[in-house]
């Protein structure tokens, strides 16, 4: 049945939506900033995976081991160069300034990407790219399934870090009440730095998975930023697995709309959902805070 097949595909892409959203949720939740260049960072990760494969034949799933840390370092640099100035203001101004800075960063990264890599779509096509697992009449692309599993694994690892590790707890505490966290001896600035770098790394990893499961081009930046925003608003803040579930929800909603309204309106359903949730229930479906 077409619907079931579409739903399965929607589920598979939903995991990536969730991963992309998790990075945004982390920086928004901890630093209270909205980095609208998040999608651009995802794009960078995607291109990294593409070029590592195109130039040196490195398997894209393997290259994630390198992309993660590399994007982490990029996150450190971006925070140091730009966003540390944004967090000095109080919350209302922080969000506004981060929007603007993110906006400028989007333009810069987008233009650089077009300049260096052209506007062409790229995809990583490995030897096993066409492999499909058949369940009855359903065809499940192996690559996308692997991406889903990896996305889930990364989120689980992050969740463990936040729950058990000293710095993970510090991040959670800072997200809840940064002044109280400071009183514990937690260096808030360093915590912000760590959270932002982690968010960037998540974006990069998501991008790598996108390049092997779908395709990338300089223009996916805005698209994925919006996807991430939609999921963050859907899921609410404070829960990584909420992001994952929200991402899957979005994927399923898109799949349903594709079947009934056709492909061209796929993006619209997510954006409409986004607006409705914003107006009706801004704290999201599973969230704690608005």
């Amino acid at each position, binding site marked *: 049945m077409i619907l079931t097949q579409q739903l399965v595909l929607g589920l598979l892409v939903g995991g990536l939506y969730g991963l992309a959203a998790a990075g945004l949720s982390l920086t928004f939740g901890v630093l209270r900033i909205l980095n609208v260049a998040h999608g651009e960072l995802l794009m960078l990760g995607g291109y990294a995976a593409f070029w590592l494969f195109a130039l040196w034949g490195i398997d894209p799933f393997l290259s994630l081991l390198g992309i993660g840390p590399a994007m982490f370092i990029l996150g450190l640099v971006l925070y140091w160069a730009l966003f540390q100035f944004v967090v000095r203001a109080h919350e209302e101004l922080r969000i506004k300034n981060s929007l603007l800075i993110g906006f400028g960063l989007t333009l810069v990264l987008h233009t650089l990407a077009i*300049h260096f890599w052209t506007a062409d779509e790229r995809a990583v096509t490995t030897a096993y790219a066409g492999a499909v697992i058949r369940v009855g009449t359903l065809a499940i692309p192996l690559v996308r399934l692997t991406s889903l599993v990896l996305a889930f694994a990364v989120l689980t690892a992050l969740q463990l870090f936040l729950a058990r590790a000293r710095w993970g707890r510090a991040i959670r505490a800072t997200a809840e009440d940064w002044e109280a966290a400071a009183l514990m001896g937690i260096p808030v600035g360093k915590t912000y730095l760590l959270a932002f770098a982690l968010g960037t790394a998540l974006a990069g990893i998501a991008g790598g998975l996108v390049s092997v499961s779908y395709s990338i081009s300089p223009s996916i930046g805005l698209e994925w930023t919006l996807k991430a925003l939609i999921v963050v*608003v859907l899921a609410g803040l404070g829960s990584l697995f909420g992001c994952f579930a929200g991402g899957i929800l979005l994927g399923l909603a898109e799949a349903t709309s594709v079947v009934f309204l056709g492909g061209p309106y796929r993006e619209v359903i997510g954006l409409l959902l986004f607006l409705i949730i914003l107006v009706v229930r801004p704290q999201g479906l599973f969230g704690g805070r608005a």
Partner: protein
Amino acid sequence: MKLLLGGVLLAAGFAVVPFFTARNDLLNLGVQIFLAVSLAQSWNLLGGYGGQINLGHAAFFGLGALATRILWVDGVPLFFALGAGAVVATAFGVLIGGPAFRLRGAYFAIGTLALAEILRITVGNLMPEISTIPTADLASYSLVPRYYLGLALAIVCVVLVAIVIRSRVGLGIQAVREDEAAAEASGVGALRHKLLALALSTALVGLTGGVYAYYHVSYYPQHAFSPGWTFDAVLISFIGGVGTLHGPILGALFYVILKEFLALRLVELHLLIFGVLFILVVLFLPGGLVEAWSRARRLIGRRG
């Protein structure tokens, strides 16, 4: 006073250009500048003076363009077509303004962005074909009336914003930007003033879209909804000097001229430069070119 004089001189200067040259490329440059000024000034009213970052500005530009184009191509006199464009844009703006302003700062910005994208995709799907002026009118197409219409639009935008800002409503709008709670407490209805700013902002950019539709021989309807227009408005406003009257004018001149200059060698790189400039402005020089200019003057004044 000096600013007023400068503005009048600038306008007069632009007004006489067609008498000295018939070069199409110069006239086109002029129209680009006028559109940029209007685009930015209309955004600046809500974003700069009102403090509400509207990332869906392109939606209203596109709606104005769409309405005007459809009516005008169908034979409706230009004046009414332009008016209809502004009305459609404003109606839409006020309609979504109510619920949109319930959202806090960031959510308003991305909410309007989402809205603009929804419109762009929908229009792109419903009207994918290029829109062209009917061949009969093509023969009589002349740049000069479009040049003057653009100039009139730019002047109207600047003058209207100037008048509103100095009025009681304008003071209310700025008070809401500074401290919404305090404004409410002293009787300034925050929602009402935000809606007024939004209404005028969308009316002006709807008009701008209409002029754009009149100006272009052929274009894709969905292109008028592209986020690039919002980006232009935001970039120009901030680089020029957000929240000031002459900032968007300076910014527009700077932006369009630099873009033309760079287009000769490095095609898309103007966005890169402006992106970097924009970031620098937001971080270190929030008053943009206007602030840079007054700081430079003070520096020179001290030396002299």
